[in-house]
Protein backbone atom coordinates (compact mmCIF):
# COMPACT_ATOMS: atom_id res chain seq x y z
CA UNK A 1 0.00 0.00 0.00
CA UNK A 2 0.97 3.59 -0.34
CA UNK A 3 2.28 5.38 -3.40
CA UNK A 4 4.62 4.01 -6.02
CA UNK A 5 6.32 6.54 -8.25
CA UNK A 6 8.06 5.70 -11.50
CA UNK A 7 10.16 8.63 -12.72
CA UNK A 8 11.85 8.66 -16.05
CA UNK A 9 15.28 9.78 -14.90
CA UNK A 10 17.28 10.78 -11.89
CA UNK A 11 20.10 12.50 -13.71
CA UNK A 12 18.29 15.74 -14.28
CA UNK A 13 17.74 18.44 -11.67
CA UNK A 14 14.12 18.82 -12.73
CA UNK A 15 13.32 15.24 -11.76
CA UNK A 16 15.46 15.41 -8.68
CA UNK A 17 13.31 18.35 -7.60
CA UNK A 18 10.11 16.44 -8.28
CA UNK A 19 11.37 13.47 -6.30
CA UNK A 20 12.46 15.68 -3.41
CA UNK A 21 9.14 17.48 -3.31
CA UNK A 22 7.25 14.19 -3.35
CA UNK A 23 9.35 12.75 -0.55
CA UNK A 24 8.93 15.86 1.56
CA UNK A 25 5.17 15.92 1.07
CA UNK A 26 4.85 12.17 1.70
CA UNK A 27 6.78 12.59 4.91
CA UNK A 28 4.61 15.53 5.96
CA UNK A 29 1.41 13.62 5.24
CA UNK A 30 2.83 10.36 6.62
CA UNK A 31 2.10 8.21 3.60
CA UNK A 32 4.45 5.46 2.35
CA UNK A 33 6.19 6.39 -0.89
CA UNK A 34 8.56 4.39 -3.05
CA UNK A 35 10.34 5.83 -6.05
CA UNK A 36 11.94 3.90 -8.88
CA UNK A 37 13.88 5.35 -11.76
CA UNK A 38 13.34 4.17 -15.32
CA UNK A 39 16.58 5.68 -16.59
CA UNK A 40 14.89 6.65 -19.88
CA UNK A 41 14.23 3.00 -20.66
CA UNK A 42 10.59 2.18 -21.29
CA UNK A 43 10.97 -1.49 -20.59
CA UNK A 44 12.64 -0.72 -17.29
CA UNK A 45 9.64 1.51 -16.52
CA UNK A 46 7.28 -1.33 -17.32
CA UNK A 47 9.30 -3.66 -15.10
CA UNK A 48 9.26 -1.07 -12.31
CA UNK A 49 5.48 -0.78 -12.55
CA UNK A 50 5.08 -4.55 -12.58
CA UNK A 51 7.14 -4.74 -9.44
CA UNK A 52 4.93 -2.05 -7.86
CA UNK A 53 1.87 -4.14 -8.74
CA UNK A 54 3.36 -7.17 -7.01
CA UNK A 55 4.16 -5.01 -4.01
CA UNK A 56 0.55 -3.79 -4.00
CA UNK A 57 0.68 0.01 -4.06
CA UNK A 58 -2.60 1.97 -4.04
CA UNK A 59 -1.64 4.77 -6.38
CA UNK A 60 0.90 4.88 -9.18
CA UNK A 61 2.51 8.21 -9.96
CA UNK A 62 4.26 7.94 -13.29
CA UNK A 63 6.21 10.29 -15.47
CA UNK A 64 6.16 8.27 -18.68
CA UNK A 65 9.37 7.67 -20.57
CA UNK A 66 7.13 7.96 -23.60
CA UNK A 67 3.53 9.17 -23.71
CA UNK A 68 2.34 6.44 -26.03
CA UNK A 69 4.66 3.76 -24.85
CA UNK A 70 3.54 3.98 -21.24
CA UNK A 71 0.18 2.57 -22.26
CA UNK A 72 0.77 -1.06 -21.25
CA UNK A 73 2.29 -0.13 -17.91
CA UNK A 74 -0.65 2.11 -17.07
CA UNK A 75 -3.20 -0.43 -18.26
CA UNK A 76 -1.56 -3.14 -16.16
CA UNK A 77 -1.68 -0.92 -13.11
CA UNK A 78 -5.31 0.00 -13.72
CA UNK A 79 -6.20 -3.65 -14.27
CA UNK A 80 -4.68 -4.38 -10.88
CA UNK A 81 -7.00 -1.76 -9.35
CA UNK A 82 -4.31 0.86 -8.94
CA UNK A 83 -5.16 4.53 -9.55
CA UNK A 84 -2.75 6.28 -11.88
CA UNK A 85 -1.51 9.87 -11.91
CA UNK A 86 0.79 11.08 -14.67
CA UNK A 87 3.31 13.79 -13.94
CA UNK A 88 5.16 16.06 -16.37
CA UNK A 89 4.58 13.87 -19.45
CA UNK A 90 0.97 12.97 -20.31
CA UNK A 91 -0.07 9.50 -21.37
CA UNK A 92 -1.86 9.09 -24.68
CA UNK A 93 -4.76 6.82 -25.54
CA UNK A 94 -5.49 5.92 -21.95
CA UNK A 95 -7.45 7.67 -19.21
CA UNK A 96 -5.71 8.36 -15.97
CA UNK A 97 -7.09 9.76 -12.76
CA UNK A 98 -5.16 12.96 -13.20
CA UNK A 99 -2.38 14.58 -15.22
CA UNK A 100 -0.16 17.14 -13.55
CA UNK A 101 2.31 18.89 -15.78
CA UNK A 102 3.71 21.86 -17.58
CA UNK A 103 2.26 22.79 -20.92
CA UNK A 104 5.48 22.33 -22.85
CA UNK A 105 4.07 23.56 -26.12
CA UNK A 106 2.92 26.81 -24.50
CA UNK A 107 6.34 27.10 -22.89
CA UNK A 108 7.95 26.79 -26.29
CA UNK A 109 5.74 29.57 -27.62
CA UNK A 110 6.73 31.76 -24.68
CA UNK A 111 10.38 31.11 -25.41
CA UNK A 112 9.80 32.19 -29.00
CA UNK A 113 8.13 35.40 -27.89
CA UNK A 114 11.00 36.18 -25.55
CA UNK A 115 13.53 35.42 -28.27
CA UNK A 116 11.79 37.70 -30.77
CA UNK A 117 11.64 40.45 -28.18
CA UNK A 118 15.34 40.11 -27.31
CA UNK A 119 16.31 40.20 -30.97
CA UNK A 120 14.16 43.19 -31.69
CA UNK A 121 12.00 41.26 -34.09
CA UNK A 122 14.66 40.09 -36.51
CA UNK A 123 17.68 37.85 -36.56
CA UNK A 124 18.98 34.32 -37.01
CA UNK A 125 18.28 31.59 -34.50
CA UNK A 126 19.66 28.11 -33.81
CA UNK A 127 18.03 25.32 -31.83
CA UNK A 128 19.52 22.52 -29.73
CA UNK A 129 17.07 19.63 -29.53
CA UNK A 130 16.57 16.09 -28.23
CA UNK A 131 14.35 14.41 -30.79
CA UNK A 132 13.46 11.23 -28.93
CA UNK A 133 11.82 12.88 -25.91
CA UNK A 134 8.27 14.04 -26.52
CA UNK A 135 8.04 16.81 -23.96
CA UNK A 136 11.11 18.30 -25.64
CA UNK A 137 9.68 17.83 -29.11
CA UNK A 138 6.58 19.76 -27.92
CA UNK A 139 8.78 22.63 -26.73
CA UNK A 140 10.59 22.80 -30.04
CA UNK A 141 7.29 22.65 -31.93
CA UNK A 142 5.94 25.45 -29.76
CA UNK A 143 9.06 27.50 -30.30
CA UNK A 144 8.93 27.08 -34.08
CA UNK A 145 5.20 27.86 -34.10
CA UNK A 146 5.74 30.91 -31.90
CA UNK A 147 8.39 32.28 -34.26
CA UNK A 148 6.01 32.07 -37.20
CA UNK A 149 4.52 35.32 -35.94
CA UNK A 150 7.88 37.00 -36.46
CA UNK A 151 8.74 36.57 -40.13
CA UNK A 152 12.10 38.32 -39.78
CA UNK A 153 13.36 35.81 -37.26
CA UNK A 154 14.87 32.92 -39.17
CA UNK A 155 15.85 29.48 -37.91
CA UNK A 156 19.18 28.68 -39.56
CA UNK A 157 20.32 25.53 -37.76
CA UNK A 158 19.01 22.78 -35.50
CA UNK A 159 21.24 20.12 -33.97
CA UNK A 160 20.94 17.50 -31.28
CA UNK A 161 22.80 17.88 -27.99
CA UNK A 162 21.52 15.47 -25.40
CA UNK A 163 24.16 15.84 -22.73
CA UNK A 164 25.80 19.07 -21.78
CA UNK A 165 29.02 18.05 -23.51
CA UNK A 166 27.23 17.16 -26.73
CA UNK A 167 25.26 20.39 -26.60
CA UNK A 168 28.48 22.35 -26.21
CA UNK A 169 30.02 20.75 -29.27
CA UNK A 170 26.82 21.19 -31.28
CA UNK A 171 26.59 24.87 -30.31
CA UNK A 172 30.24 25.51 -31.12
CA UNK A 173 29.91 23.89 -34.51
CA UNK A 174 26.67 25.68 -35.38
CA UNK A 175 28.26 28.99 -34.45
CA UNK A 176 31.26 28.12 -36.54
CA UNK A 177 29.10 27.32 -39.55
CA UNK A 178 26.81 30.31 -39.02
CA UNK A 179 28.75 33.14 -37.42
CA UNK A 180 25.78 35.47 -37.87
CA UNK A 181 23.58 33.62 -35.38
CA UNK A 182 21.82 36.02 -32.98
CA UNK A 183 20.03 33.63 -30.69
CA UNK A 184 20.11 30.04 -29.48
CA UNK A 185 17.22 28.16 -27.91
CA UNK A 186 18.23 25.17 -25.84
CA UNK A 187 15.62 22.52 -25.15
CA UNK A 188 16.63 22.42 -21.49
CA UNK A 189 18.86 24.14 -19.00
CA UNK A 190 21.81 21.91 -19.88
CA UNK A 191 21.62 22.76 -23.56
CA UNK A 192 21.24 26.48 -22.87
CA UNK A 193 24.09 26.63 -20.36
CA UNK A 194 26.33 24.77 -22.78
CA UNK A 195 25.32 27.14 -25.58
CA UNK A 196 26.27 30.10 -23.40
CA UNK A 197 29.73 28.61 -22.90
CA UNK A 198 30.09 28.09 -26.64
CA UNK A 199 29.04 31.68 -27.32
CA UNK A 200 31.67 33.00 -24.96
CA UNK A 201 34.43 30.75 -26.24
CA UNK A 202 33.63 31.96 -29.77
CA UNK A 203 33.83 35.55 -28.50
CA UNK A 204 30.29 36.31 -29.60
CA UNK A 205 28.84 37.41 -26.26
CA UNK A 206 27.92 40.80 -27.64
CA UNK A 207 25.89 39.26 -30.41
CA UNK A 208 24.22 36.03 -29.31
CA UNK A 209 21.35 35.64 -26.82
CA UNK A 210 20.59 32.28 -25.27
CA UNK A 211 17.24 31.11 -23.93
CA UNK A 212 16.70 27.91 -22.02
CA UNK A 213 13.90 25.81 -20.62
CA UNK A 214 13.30 24.22 -17.17
CA UNK A 215 14.55 27.11 -15.04
CA UNK A 216 16.38 25.17 -12.37
CA UNK A 217 18.55 27.04 -9.93
CA UNK A 218 21.77 26.87 -11.95
CA UNK A 219 20.08 28.32 -15.01
CA UNK A 220 18.29 31.04 -13.05
CA UNK A 221 21.60 32.06 -11.49
CA UNK A 222 23.10 32.20 -14.94
CA UNK A 223 20.29 34.44 -16.14
CA UNK A 224 21.01 36.69 -13.17
CA UNK A 225 24.74 36.88 -13.69
CA UNK A 226 25.42 36.15 -17.32
CA UNK A 227 24.30 38.67 -19.95
CA UNK A 228 24.35 35.98 -22.66
CA UNK A 229 21.65 34.01 -20.84
CA UNK A 230 18.73 36.36 -21.37
CA UNK A 231 15.99 34.20 -20.00
CA UNK A 232 14.63 30.80 -19.25
CA UNK A 233 11.17 29.28 -19.40
CA UNK A 234 10.55 28.11 -15.90
CA UNK A 235 8.82 24.95 -14.75
CA UNK A 236 7.80 24.30 -11.19
CA UNK A 237 8.78 20.78 -10.22
CA UNK A 238 8.33 21.44 -6.50
CA UNK A 239 4.67 22.25 -7.09
CA UNK A 240 4.30 19.23 -9.31
CA UNK A 241 5.76 16.83 -6.80
CA UNK A 242 3.69 18.18 -3.93
CA UNK A 243 0.54 18.19 -6.01
CA UNK A 244 1.15 14.60 -7.13
CA UNK A 245 1.30 13.33 -3.55
CA UNK A 246 -1.71 15.40 -2.49
CA UNK A 247 -3.73 14.14 -5.43
CA UNK A 248 -2.71 10.57 -4.64
CA UNK A 249 -3.90 11.02 -1.06
CA UNK A 250 -7.24 12.35 -2.27
CA UNK A 251 -7.61 9.34 -4.55
CA UNK A 252 -6.79 7.01 -1.67
CA UNK A 253 -9.48 8.74 0.34
CA UNK A 254 -11.93 8.11 -2.47
CA UNK A 255 -12.30 11.74 -3.51
CA UNK A 256 -12.78 13.00 -7.05
CA UNK A 257 -9.83 14.80 -8.62
CA UNK A 258 -9.62 16.95 -11.75
CA UNK A 259 -8.46 15.05 -14.83
CA UNK A 260 -5.94 17.73 -15.71
CA UNK A 261 -4.00 19.97 -13.39
CA UNK A 262 -1.86 22.08 -15.70
CA UNK A 263 0.94 24.15 -14.26
CA UNK A 264 1.56 27.23 -16.33
CA UNK A 265 5.24 27.76 -17.03
CA UNK A 266 6.76 31.08 -16.13
CA UNK A 267 9.38 33.10 -17.89
CA UNK A 268 12.37 34.02 -15.80
CA UNK A 269 14.43 36.93 -17.08
CA UNK A 270 16.36 37.81 -13.96
CA UNK A 271 15.74 39.80 -10.83
Amino acid at each position, binding site marked *: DGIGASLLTQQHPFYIEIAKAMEAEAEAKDVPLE*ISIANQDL*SKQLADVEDFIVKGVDVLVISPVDSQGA*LPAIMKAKAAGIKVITVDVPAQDVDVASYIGTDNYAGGVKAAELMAEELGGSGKVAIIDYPTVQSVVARIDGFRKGLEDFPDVEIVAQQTGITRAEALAAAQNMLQANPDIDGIFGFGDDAALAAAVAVKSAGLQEQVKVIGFDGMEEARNAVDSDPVMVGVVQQFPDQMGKMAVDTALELMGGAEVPAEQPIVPGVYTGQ
Partner: protein
Amino acid sequence: MTSNRQAYLRTMMRQYAGIVLSLVALCVFFSLTNDRFLSVANFTNIFQQVAVIAITAFGMTWVILLGEIDLSVGSIIAVAGMVGAQIIGLGWGFAPALMLTLAAGAAMGLFNGVMTAKLLLPSFIVTVATMSIFRGLVSLPTGGAPAMNMDPTWIAIGANSFLGVPIIIWVVLVLFVVNHVALAHTTFGRKTYLTGGNREAALYSGINVDAMKIRIFMISGLMAAISGILLSSRLYSAQTNAGMSYELDAIAAAVLGGTSLSGGVGTMVGTLIGALIIGVLNNGMNMLSVPYFYQLIVKGLVILIAVYLDVRSKQRQG
Protein backbone atom coordinates in the same frame (compact mmCIF):
# COMPACT_ATOMS: atom_id res chain seq x y z
CA MET B 1 28.62 -46.00 -18.29
CA THR B 2 27.40 -45.18 -14.79
CA SER B 3 30.77 -43.81 -13.84
CA ASN B 4 30.62 -41.82 -17.05
CA ARG B 5 27.28 -40.34 -16.07
CA GLN B 6 28.58 -39.56 -12.61
CA ALA B 7 31.62 -37.91 -14.11
CA TYR B 8 29.28 -35.90 -16.30
CA LEU B 9 27.23 -34.80 -13.30
CA ARG B 10 30.37 -33.87 -11.42
CA THR B 11 31.51 -31.82 -14.38
CA MET B 12 28.12 -30.07 -14.47
CA MET B 13 28.24 -29.36 -10.74
CA ARG B 14 31.72 -27.98 -11.01
CA GLN B 15 30.85 -25.96 -14.06
CA TYR B 16 27.86 -24.17 -12.60
CA ALA B 17 28.64 -24.28 -8.88
CA GLY B 18 29.70 -20.65 -8.69
CA ILE B 19 26.79 -19.03 -10.47
CA VAL B 20 24.11 -21.34 -9.12
CA LEU B 21 25.39 -20.44 -5.68
CA SER B 22 25.14 -16.74 -6.52
CA LEU B 23 21.61 -17.15 -7.88
CA VAL B 24 20.42 -19.13 -4.87
CA ALA B 25 22.05 -16.71 -2.46
CA LEU B 26 20.30 -13.78 -4.12
CA CYS B 27 16.93 -15.55 -4.02
CA VAL B 28 17.32 -16.50 -0.37
CA PHE B 29 18.34 -12.98 0.55
CA PHE B 30 15.44 -11.36 -1.27
CA SER B 31 12.86 -13.79 0.07
CA LEU B 32 14.02 -13.14 3.61
CA THR B 33 13.85 -9.39 3.17
CA ASN B 34 10.60 -9.19 1.22
CA ASP B 35 7.70 -11.58 1.71
CA ARG B 36 6.26 -10.88 -1.72
CA PHE B 37 9.42 -11.89 -3.54
CA LEU B 38 8.81 -15.61 -3.35
CA SER B 39 5.55 -15.78 -5.30
CA VAL B 40 4.45 -17.21 -8.61
CA ALA B 41 3.39 -13.76 -9.74
CA ASN B 42 6.81 -12.35 -9.00
CA PHE B 43 8.70 -15.15 -10.68
CA THR B 44 6.51 -14.64 -13.72
CA ASN B 45 7.52 -10.99 -13.57
CA ILE B 46 11.20 -11.85 -13.34
CA PHE B 47 11.03 -14.22 -16.27
CA GLN B 48 9.12 -11.71 -18.38
CA GLN B 49 11.50 -8.92 -17.51
CA VAL B 50 14.52 -11.06 -18.18
CA ALA B 51 13.20 -12.55 -21.44
CA VAL B 52 14.62 -9.88 -23.72
CA ILE B 53 18.08 -10.04 -22.16
CA ALA B 54 18.08 -13.83 -22.05
CA ILE B 55 17.14 -14.29 -25.70
CA THR B 56 19.60 -11.66 -26.85
CA ALA B 57 22.21 -13.36 -24.68
CA PHE B 58 21.53 -16.72 -26.35
CA GLY B 59 22.49 -15.17 -29.67
CA MET B 60 25.43 -13.38 -28.05
CA THR B 61 26.68 -16.67 -26.60
CA TRP B 62 27.11 -18.08 -30.12
CA VAL B 63 28.99 -14.99 -31.19
CA ILE B 64 31.27 -14.96 -28.16
CA LEU B 65 31.92 -18.69 -28.45
CA LEU B 66 33.25 -17.99 -31.92
CA GLY B 67 35.61 -15.45 -30.39
CA GLU B 68 33.71 -12.49 -31.81
CA ILE B 69 31.41 -9.89 -30.30
CA ASP B 70 28.15 -8.25 -31.40
CA LEU B 71 27.55 -4.81 -29.97
CA SER B 72 24.77 -4.01 -32.43
CA VAL B 73 22.11 -6.23 -30.84
CA GLY B 74 20.58 -3.35 -28.86
CA SER B 75 20.03 -1.41 -32.07
CA ILE B 76 18.71 -4.50 -33.84
CA ILE B 77 16.13 -4.87 -31.05
CA ALA B 78 14.91 -1.36 -31.84
CA VAL B 79 14.90 -1.85 -35.61
CA ALA B 80 12.96 -5.10 -35.26
CA GLY B 81 10.21 -3.41 -33.25
CA MET B 82 10.05 -0.59 -35.76
CA VAL B 83 9.91 -2.88 -38.80
CA GLY B 84 7.08 -4.80 -37.18
CA ALA B 85 5.16 -1.64 -36.32
CA GLN B 86 5.60 -0.18 -39.79
CA ILE B 87 4.43 -3.32 -41.55
CA ILE B 88 1.47 -3.70 -39.23
CA GLY B 89 0.83 -0.04 -39.98
CA LEU B 90 0.73 -0.83 -43.70
CA GLY B 91 -2.05 -3.26 -42.92
CA TRP B 92 -0.27 -6.36 -44.15
CA GLY B 93 -1.26 -8.32 -41.09
CA PHE B 94 0.53 -10.19 -38.35
CA ALA B 95 2.21 -13.08 -40.12
CA PRO B 96 3.98 -11.04 -42.82
CA ALA B 97 5.03 -8.51 -40.19
CA LEU B 98 6.49 -11.25 -38.05
CA MET B 99 8.32 -12.85 -40.96
CA LEU B 100 9.71 -9.60 -42.28
CA THR B 101 10.84 -8.56 -38.82
CA LEU B 102 12.73 -11.80 -38.37
CA ALA B 103 14.16 -11.42 -41.86
CA ALA B 104 15.29 -7.90 -41.03
CA GLY B 105 17.08 -9.19 -37.94
CA ALA B 106 18.79 -11.91 -39.91
CA ALA B 107 19.72 -9.42 -42.64
CA MET B 108 21.36 -7.06 -40.16
CA GLY B 109 23.25 -10.04 -38.75
CA LEU B 110 24.23 -10.99 -42.27
CA PHE B 111 25.67 -7.53 -42.80
CA ASN B 112 27.72 -7.82 -39.61
CA GLY B 113 28.85 -11.29 -40.59
CA VAL B 114 29.91 -10.39 -44.09
CA MET B 115 31.84 -7.35 -42.90
CA THR B 116 33.64 -9.48 -40.34
CA ALA B 117 34.23 -12.61 -42.39
CA LYS B 118 34.77 -11.29 -45.90
CA LEU B 119 36.38 -7.91 -45.31
CA LEU B 120 38.35 -9.25 -42.35
CA LEU B 121 37.35 -6.36 -40.09
CA PRO B 122 37.33 -6.94 -36.33
CA SER B 123 33.78 -7.66 -35.20
CA PHE B 124 34.06 -5.23 -32.31
CA ILE B 125 34.51 -2.27 -34.60
CA VAL B 126 32.08 -3.56 -37.22
CA THR B 127 29.33 -3.84 -34.65
CA VAL B 128 30.21 -0.55 -32.96
CA ALA B 129 29.65 0.98 -36.40
CA THR B 130 26.45 -0.91 -37.14
CA MET B 131 25.18 -0.14 -33.64
CA SER B 132 25.28 3.49 -34.75
CA ILE B 133 23.97 2.80 -38.26
CA PHE B 134 21.02 0.68 -37.14
CA ARG B 135 20.19 3.18 -34.40
CA GLY B 136 20.08 5.86 -37.05
CA LEU B 137 17.92 3.73 -39.36
CA VAL B 138 15.32 2.99 -36.71
CA SER B 139 14.46 6.66 -36.41
CA LEU B 140 13.93 7.35 -40.10
CA PRO B 141 10.27 6.26 -40.42
CA THR B 142 9.03 8.36 -37.49
CA GLY B 143 11.73 10.97 -37.04
CA GLY B 144 12.54 9.66 -33.58
CA ALA B 145 9.02 9.30 -32.26
CA PRO B 146 7.80 5.88 -31.20
CA ALA B 147 5.47 3.92 -33.47
CA MET B 148 2.42 2.31 -31.90
CA ASN B 149 1.78 -1.31 -32.74
CA MET B 150 -1.67 -2.30 -31.54
CA ASP B 151 -2.06 -5.40 -33.67
CA PRO B 152 -3.97 -7.77 -31.39
CA THR B 153 -1.86 -10.83 -32.18
CA TRP B 154 1.35 -8.84 -31.79
CA ILE B 155 0.22 -7.62 -28.39
CA ALA B 156 -0.99 -11.05 -27.40
CA ILE B 157 2.58 -12.36 -27.49
CA GLY B 158 3.51 -10.15 -24.60
CA ALA B 159 0.20 -10.17 -22.75
CA ASN B 160 -1.38 -13.62 -23.05
CA SER B 161 -0.72 -16.97 -21.50
CA PHE B 162 -0.74 -20.51 -22.76
CA LEU B 163 -1.46 -23.34 -20.33
CA GLY B 164 -1.32 -20.79 -17.56
CA VAL B 165 2.21 -19.68 -18.41
CA PRO B 166 2.83 -16.37 -20.21
CA ILE B 167 3.70 -16.82 -23.87
CA ILE B 168 6.90 -14.84 -23.38
CA ILE B 169 8.14 -17.46 -20.96
CA TRP B 170 7.32 -20.20 -23.45
CA VAL B 171 9.30 -18.35 -26.07
CA VAL B 172 12.30 -18.09 -23.76
CA LEU B 173 12.13 -21.74 -22.85
CA VAL B 174 11.71 -22.97 -26.40
CA LEU B 175 14.56 -20.79 -27.65
CA PHE B 176 16.68 -21.98 -24.76
CA VAL B 177 16.10 -25.61 -25.67
CA VAL B 178 16.67 -25.01 -29.37
CA ASN B 179 19.88 -23.08 -28.80
CA HIS B 180 21.11 -25.51 -26.19
CA VAL B 181 20.53 -28.56 -28.34
CA ALA B 182 22.04 -26.88 -31.40
CA LEU B 183 25.12 -25.90 -29.43
CA ALA B 184 25.66 -29.03 -27.39
CA HIS B 185 24.58 -31.75 -29.75
CA THR B 186 24.97 -30.74 -33.38
CA THR B 187 27.98 -30.55 -35.62
CA PHE B 188 27.21 -26.88 -36.10
CA GLY B 189 27.61 -26.34 -32.36
CA ARG B 190 30.76 -28.41 -32.33
CA LYS B 191 32.23 -26.40 -35.19
CA THR B 192 31.44 -23.24 -33.28
CA TYR B 193 33.43 -24.42 -30.27
CA LEU B 194 36.33 -25.56 -32.44
CA THR B 195 36.46 -22.36 -34.46
CA GLY B 196 36.34 -20.30 -31.31
CA GLY B 197 39.04 -22.45 -29.71
CA ASN B 198 41.51 -22.18 -32.59
CA ARG B 199 40.45 -20.57 -35.82
CA GLU B 200 43.41 -21.80 -37.83
CA ALA B 201 43.14 -25.38 -36.66
CA ALA B 202 39.45 -25.29 -37.53
CA LEU B 203 40.29 -24.01 -40.98
CA TYR B 204 42.80 -26.83 -41.48
CA SER B 205 40.20 -29.33 -40.34
CA GLY B 206 37.92 -28.35 -43.19
CA ILE B 207 35.58 -26.06 -41.29
CA ASN B 208 34.39 -23.15 -43.40
CA VAL B 209 35.19 -20.50 -40.85
CA ASP B 210 33.80 -17.63 -42.91
CA ALA B 211 30.46 -19.35 -43.37
CA MET B 212 30.36 -20.08 -39.64
CA LYS B 213 30.89 -16.43 -38.83
CA ILE B 214 28.20 -15.26 -41.19
CA ARG B 215 25.68 -17.79 -39.93
CA ILE B 216 26.38 -17.02 -36.32
CA PHE B 217 26.01 -13.30 -36.75
CA MET B 218 22.71 -14.09 -38.45
CA ILE B 219 21.66 -16.14 -35.44
CA SER B 220 22.57 -13.24 -33.21
CA GLY B 221 20.57 -10.84 -35.38
CA LEU B 222 17.64 -13.22 -35.38
CA MET B 223 17.65 -13.61 -31.61
CA ALA B 224 17.85 -9.86 -31.19
CA ALA B 225 14.91 -9.46 -33.58
CA ILE B 226 12.87 -11.90 -31.51
CA SER B 227 13.79 -9.90 -28.42
CA GLY B 228 12.68 -6.78 -30.25
CA ILE B 229 9.34 -8.37 -31.06
CA LEU B 230 8.78 -9.36 -27.43
CA LEU B 231 9.79 -5.94 -26.21
CA SER B 232 7.58 -4.03 -28.61
CA SER B 233 4.78 -6.43 -27.87
CA ARG B 234 5.05 -5.78 -24.15
CA LEU B 235 5.19 -2.03 -24.76
CA TYR B 236 2.48 -1.92 -27.50
CA SER B 237 4.92 0.25 -29.41
CA ALA B 238 8.31 0.43 -31.06
CA GLN B 239 10.61 2.86 -29.30
CA THR B 240 13.51 4.34 -31.19
CA ASN B 241 15.69 4.09 -28.10
CA ALA B 242 14.62 0.54 -27.29
CA GLY B 243 17.35 -1.88 -26.33
CA MET B 244 19.91 0.84 -25.72
CA SER B 245 22.96 -0.68 -23.99
CA TYR B 246 21.30 -4.10 -23.80
CA GLU B 247 24.37 -5.49 -25.52
CA LEU B 248 26.26 -5.03 -22.27
CA ASP B 249 23.61 -6.85 -20.26
CA ALA B 250 23.59 -9.66 -22.80
CA ILE B 251 27.37 -9.96 -22.70
CA ALA B 252 27.32 -9.79 -18.92
CA ALA B 253 24.75 -12.61 -18.80
CA ALA B 254 26.87 -14.78 -21.07
CA VAL B 255 30.09 -14.09 -19.19
CA LEU B 256 28.45 -14.57 -15.80
CA GLY B 257 27.35 -17.93 -17.19
CA GLY B 258 30.96 -18.89 -17.79
CA THR B 259 31.34 -17.98 -21.46
CA SER B 260 34.92 -16.97 -22.17
CA LEU B 261 35.37 -13.82 -24.21
CA SER B 262 38.37 -15.35 -25.93
CA GLY B 263 36.07 -17.92 -27.51
CA GLY B 264 35.58 -21.66 -27.40
CA VAL B 265 34.21 -21.96 -23.88
CA GLY B 266 30.62 -21.53 -22.68
CA THR B 267 27.12 -23.02 -22.61
CA MET B 268 23.52 -21.91 -23.01
CA VAL B 269 22.68 -23.24 -19.55
CA GLY B 270 25.23 -20.89 -18.07
CA THR B 271 23.90 -17.97 -20.08
CA LEU B 272 20.34 -18.62 -18.89
CA ILE B 273 21.50 -18.70 -15.29
CA GLY B 274 23.52 -15.54 -15.88
CA ALA B 275 20.48 -13.75 -17.28
CA LEU B 276 18.39 -14.90 -14.31
CA ILE B 277 20.96 -13.50 -11.89
CA ILE B 278 20.65 -10.11 -13.55
CA GLY B 279 16.85 -10.37 -13.59
CA VAL B 280 16.51 -11.47 -9.97
CA LEU B 281 18.87 -8.75 -8.90
CA ASN B 282 16.97 -5.97 -10.69
CA ASN B 283 13.63 -7.25 -9.47
CA GLY B 284 14.75 -7.86 -5.90
CA MET B 285 16.27 -4.42 -5.55
CA ASN B 286 13.09 -2.87 -6.89
CA MET B 287 11.09 -4.85 -4.37
CA LEU B 288 13.34 -3.56 -1.61
CA SER B 289 13.06 -0.03 -2.98
CA VAL B 290 16.80 0.36 -3.21
CA PRO B 291 17.48 3.85 -4.60
CA TYR B 292 18.56 3.92 -8.23
CA PHE B 293 22.21 4.85 -7.76
CA TYR B 294 22.70 2.27 -5.06
CA GLN B 295 21.18 -0.26 -7.45
CA LEU B 296 23.92 0.55 -9.94
CA ILE B 297 26.57 -0.01 -7.30
CA VAL B 298 25.05 -3.22 -5.97
CA LYS B 299 24.53 -4.60 -9.47
CA GLY B 300 28.19 -4.05 -10.32
CA LEU B 301 29.34 -5.62 -7.08
CA VAL B 302 27.11 -8.66 -7.50
CA ILE B 303 28.43 -9.21 -11.03
CA LEU B 304 31.99 -9.05 -9.71
CA ILE B 305 31.26 -11.46 -6.90
CA ALA B 306 29.38 -13.91 -9.12
CA VAL B 307 32.14 -13.99 -11.72
CA TYR B 308 34.70 -14.36 -8.97
CA LEU B 309 32.87 -17.32 -7.43
CA ASP B 310 32.56 -18.84 -10.88
CA VAL B 311 36.24 -18.46 -11.70
CA ARG B 312 37.26 -19.74 -8.29
CA SER B 313 35.06 -22.79 -8.26
CA LYS B 314 36.49 -23.76 -11.63
CA GLN B 315 40.08 -23.24 -10.52
CA ARG B 316 39.61 -25.26 -7.36
CA GLN B 317 38.15 -28.29 -8.94
CA GLY B 318 39.64 -27.99 -12.42
